[in-house]
């Protein structure tokens, strides 16, 4: 379902914090802080995860010159059980908070909710975003981090990063949110947790198609369509589906994927990056900065999420996925 925002809420600022391995990201120059300690000097990975979220939000507030009392809502989520890192960060931030879970698509679903609250007049300033911490997520969804299992070429590397954006009322000089599409949950019967790109590509396809259709737009009306964390193989599959559906090959150069590009061509990361922090970090640093600089006038951000749990996988369920999209423009 597409939502058109009449008041065009704006991205006022972005705050992105990343871990030590993310120094090697092609987007690292756009991040606000890169930390050398993956645990942020905390005792456990989960505490480090929380600290990372706090820092991203604090940087965001500092940049915009506001404090936590001036923020109306904090909307976000992560991938740890019951989203404790985000919940605990919300305790420290002391802002009215709703936790959101759309797996790796939380970066966009939180912005959609923040935009709706802004449109409603209920919010002057909201923080929206998502995060993931490699060690904490890996141990929950896969194996202990020191376990020597061979990852296939289809696997993706969970990013350690937190990306948050400050959403407020429309401002001329800031990129604004024109429209959004909330995706359906799509399941094409994929069941390999080491091949998430293949599970998520159909969801991205459906959301992109329905957004373009309902907005009455063509592929080439956008300067960029950027998906969240399909990885190199997932992106290939999405392109295959789009070509099948009549999108011209030359238009496909407008389609990119944050996860596929995140670590460059480094084979150590197999098919690329994933995790809620992947799309959040790229969307709320690189993309916002490019829009502000005027490099892009209109982009479609499509965050994809695999809605599985280790339990559902072990019980033999397939992997249902979703994708949420926001259309951002800059005057």
């Amino acid at each position, binding site marked *: 379902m597409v939502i058109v925002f009449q008041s065009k809420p704006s991205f006022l600022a972005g705050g992105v914090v990343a871990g030590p*391995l993310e120094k090697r990201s092609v987007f690292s120059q756009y991040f606000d802080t890169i930390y050398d300690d993956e645990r942020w000097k905390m005792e456990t990975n989960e505490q480090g995860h929380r600290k990372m979220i706090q820092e991203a939000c604090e940087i965001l507030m500092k940049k915009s010159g506001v404090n936590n009392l001036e923020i109306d809502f904090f909307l976000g989520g992560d991938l740890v059980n019951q989203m404790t890192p985000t919940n605990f960060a919300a305790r420290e931030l002391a802002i009215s908070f709703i936790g959101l879970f759309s797996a790796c698509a939380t970066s966009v679903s939180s912005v959609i909710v923040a935009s709706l609250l802004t449109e409603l007049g209920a919010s002057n300033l909201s923080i929206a975003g998502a995060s993931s911490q490699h*060690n904490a997520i890996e141990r929950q969804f896969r194996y202990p981090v020191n376990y020597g299992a061979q990852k296939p070429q289809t696997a993706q590397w969970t990013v350690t990063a937190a990306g948050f954006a400050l959403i407020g009322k429309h401002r001329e000089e800031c990129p604004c949110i024109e429209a959004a599409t909330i995706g359906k949950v799509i399941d094409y019967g994929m069941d390999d947790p080491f091949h998430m790109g293949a599970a998520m590509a159909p969801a991205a396809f459906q959301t992109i198609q329905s957004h373009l259709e309902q907005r009455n737009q063509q592929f080439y009306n956008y300067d960029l369509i950027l998906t969240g964390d399909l990885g190199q193989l997932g992106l290939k599959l999405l392109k295959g589906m789009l070509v099948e559906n009549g999108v011209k090959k030359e238009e496909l150069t407008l389609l990119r994927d944050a996860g596929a590009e995140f670590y460059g061509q480094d084979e*150590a990361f197999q098919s690329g990056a994933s995790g809620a922090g992947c799309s959040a970090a790229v969307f709320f640093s690189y993309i916002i900065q490019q829009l502000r600089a005027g490099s892009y006038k209109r982009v479609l951000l499509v965050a994809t999420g695999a809605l599985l749990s280790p339990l559902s996988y072990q019980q033999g369920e397939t992997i249902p996925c979703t994708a949420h999209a926001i259309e951002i423009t800059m005057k």
Partner: protein
Amino acid sequence: MVMTFVFAFIVGGIICVIGQLLMDVGNLTPAHTLSTLVVVGAILDGMGLYEPLIHFAGAGATVPITSFGNSLTHGALAEAEKHGLVGVLTGMFEVTSSGISAAIVFGFIGALIFKPKGNVD
């Protein structure tokens, strides 16, 4: 002397290749692969085939996880021979304790001194 090393290398390598094929071609997880190999080791010993393999390849046969199934069965069989049916249960860990007890002890010590680290290479 040198030949025992060569045989250890080759036999150990072949058992690992079988494991790799179970994972790549058979699409098994590491846990399924190792469980399968342990069962194979137990059956081979039941047929009296594992001991000759150890004699031939030394560590090439004792180091892969198949030897765990072998020594469990070996203990059970030895006790069963002496004490009958009850021996099947009582003899099980007679021979095998080393791998498990080492893993438990070193696991505990490892937990005390190390922290999980997310490096890539």
